[in-house]
């Protein structure tokens, strides 16, 4: 047993940390915090990261990666988050699936571009009537000689307004007996005629999108996996990354900031006596979640299943709850000042707490809601019977 990163991982951590300390300047941070999506500064940073092979450390060297493990990926995610750097998660997720399900030509066409920070993908799964039940998607793909013709609507496709490609889950067989057996996956150029993108904005100010398809044509060679085999592809995209993330540098930094704030502003008041123990509780939760995630990630790298299965999903469950608790508590510490938005007179801590508080619910909904995670852990991890 050992809880230290390997020398190689530490070196990678140092490299990406120093790189982002230097390159993730205030213009980039402002773009990230605006939540409007990537702007020119973010794009420039991503390309620089790509040039240094910092975007896809886990991929094979021939496709622009470093051939490292899930732990390196966790380190990357941690550093990106704690620097407020842009987060090209979708491209990496797409690439993970392409590595497993794509043909050689697709890999050569897309993976090096993603790794360089040139090509970006938006995930196109959800539809108005297909959320958690993603196998219900209706966006129709009809074969027409060497193309498919697409018609229908997607919703909450967050990066669609600045991405190059759509990773699109479609229905190719409406009469399939099992609905998840009639799905196919396409990589669609988002500049194709017939695509309309409309903004949807969350109450935290995060830009996401509705995407409408009207007689959009996509060449057959952009289909990933088999026709009607889309389910396998998205399972690999969602779970192929393996590991459980882990490192919580950003969250620990937020806790430090709050502690400093409380020490400066709140020390004497009797009614603030609850703060130290509550903050300690959140620190403990964060630390435990971090260790659980690290263990899951290390198990993934060893290709060993952890005791009781469950793995990364188990630590994500804890992490999602912790985020809500943390920012709710943070708002209570700020008291009436917590209401003040960025750029308001008297705003504390640059309005960041309010922003995160408003954004916190997202993390227990996206990418498989907490309830879906629990369903998966209960049935796959613990072997409980299905309905």
């Amino acid at each position, binding site marked *: *047993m050992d809880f230290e990163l390997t020398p190689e991982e530490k070196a990678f951590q140092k490299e990406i940390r120093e790189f982002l300390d230097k390159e993730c300047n205030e213009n980039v941070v402002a773009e990230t915090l605006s939540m409007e999506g990537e702007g020119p500064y973010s794009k420039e940073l991503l390309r620089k990261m790509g040039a240094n092979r910092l975007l896809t450390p886990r991929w094979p060297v021939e496709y622009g990666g470093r051939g490292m493990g899930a732990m390196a990926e966790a380190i990357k995610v941690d550093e990106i988050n704690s620097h407020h750097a842009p987060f090209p998660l979708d491209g990496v997720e797409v690439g993970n699936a392409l590595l497993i399900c794509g043909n050689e030509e697709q890999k050569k066409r897309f993976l090096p571009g993603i790794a360089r920070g040139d090509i970006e993908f938006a995930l196109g799964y959800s539809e108005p009537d297909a959320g958690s039940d993603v196998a219900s998607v209706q966006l129709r793909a009809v074969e027409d000689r060497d193309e498919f013709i697409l018609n229908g609507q997607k919703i909450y496709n967050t990066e669609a307004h600045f991405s190059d490609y759509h990773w699109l889950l479609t229905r190719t067989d409406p009469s399939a007996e099992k609905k998840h057996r009639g799905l196919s996956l396409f990589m669609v150029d988002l500049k194709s005629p017939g695509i309309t993108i409309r903004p949807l904005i969350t109450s935290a100010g995060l830009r996401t999108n509705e995407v409408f398809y009207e007689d959009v044509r996509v060449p057959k060679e952009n289909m990933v996996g088999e026709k009607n085999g889309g389910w396998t592809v998205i399972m690999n995209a969602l779970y192929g990354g393996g590991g459980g993330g882990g490192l919580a540098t950003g969250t620990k930094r937020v806790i430090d900031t709050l502690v400093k704030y409380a020490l400066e502003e709140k020390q004497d008041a009797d009614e603030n006596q609850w703060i130290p123990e509550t903050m300690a*509780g959140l620190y*403990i939760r964060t630390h435990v979640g971090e260790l659980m995630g690290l263990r899951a990630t290390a198990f993934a790298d*060893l290709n060993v299943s952890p005791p009781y299965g469950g793995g990364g999903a188990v630590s994500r*469950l804890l992490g999602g709850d912790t985020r809500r608790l943390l920012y709710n508590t943070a708002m209570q510490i700020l008291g009436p000042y917590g209401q003040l938005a960025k750029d308001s007179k008297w705003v504390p801590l640059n309005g960041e707490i309010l922003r995160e508080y408003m954004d916190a619910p997202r993390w227990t909904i996206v990418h498989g809601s907490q309830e879906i995670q629990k369903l998966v*852990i*209960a049935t796959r991890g613990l072997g*409980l019977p299905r309905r």
Partner: protein
Amino acid sequence: MDPRLSEEQEILRKSARDFLTEKCPKSLVREMENDEKGYSPQLWQEIAALGWTGLVFPEKYGGGGMSFLDLSILLEEMGRVLFPGPFFSTVLLGGLPILDIGSEEQKEKYLPEIISGKAIFTMALTEASGKYTASSVKAKATADNGNYVINGTKLFIPDAHVADYFLCVARTDDKAKSEDGITIFIVDAKSPGISKTVLKTIARDKQCEVVFKDVKVPRENILGKLNQVWGEVQKIIERAAIAKCCEMLGGMEVVLDMTVAYVKERIQFDVPVGVFQAIQHHCVYMLVDVEGSRATAYEAAWRVSTGRPYSSEAAITKAWVSDAYQRVVALGTQSHGGVSIMEDHDMPLYYRRAKAAELTFGDARFHRKTVARKLGFEVA
């Protein structure tokens, strides 16, 4: 980072599990709850013969020379079966402190007795306040002709009724700051002036009141430094807290397993109750708590084992595991329904011990305060 046990540790785990499954069934646990001694001397000799009492001590005293992490794995296994007896007291509160700060003579005298299973040790630290703080140590040891005389009442002392020796923590200087006037004495339990009363506790473990009345202790029985030993006492408590968490982890695993197995079989409304999402979510949260406890307990034990500082991790771990075990027994009981609150069910054995373990070596609140201090807060 490597989350796996070593091959040797896997062997230790398996042999401990096999042995304890056979030798420590729930019938023995129940019998020992009502037994005067609270443990089986015969089983005690068997575990000594297996090398468990000596596992963590250096070979030169006759021990196994294994690591604290190895010991933690053994404790996890003992926690699974609720192993009754003075193992924890003897090793964590007796032997290891002597190994830490004892003189060579003391080590040579006492460690072989512990290792061979001959002597039972415990630590007489807490008093009426029930707290693990320096200012709570009020029992006095007064110098008298080069020797010391101890007076005071110690409370919640585990296994004192069968102990051969106490490590008695007493105040030797009441003018100094409370941290600066404390000394540990190795006291022969047969010394005149010691009286013990076994308390009736929730876990029916044997915690005692121990009254020291004019108990004479020779000067050479001071363990570590005169007056300046509180820092060591804290380390002993922190390490014991980590060890306790490993024991608790074992208990939590069993409660989870037992619950998952039951909800797969119990039929209501024509289906196993494990089909219902409410029950599934109970089980999933139990798993989160078990795995969270495992991650933090192992990390802390690994830190002790590898000589890293572990004070923060002890507080984090005991805070988390104390609460987690409470949640696990609560959800486990809820998922079982009525059957699991019947006295003859195994669940109450764990339910009662979860609370006892929470309350020893500082509960979650106590340790959260420690973490708060480490974050920079001033906390009373």
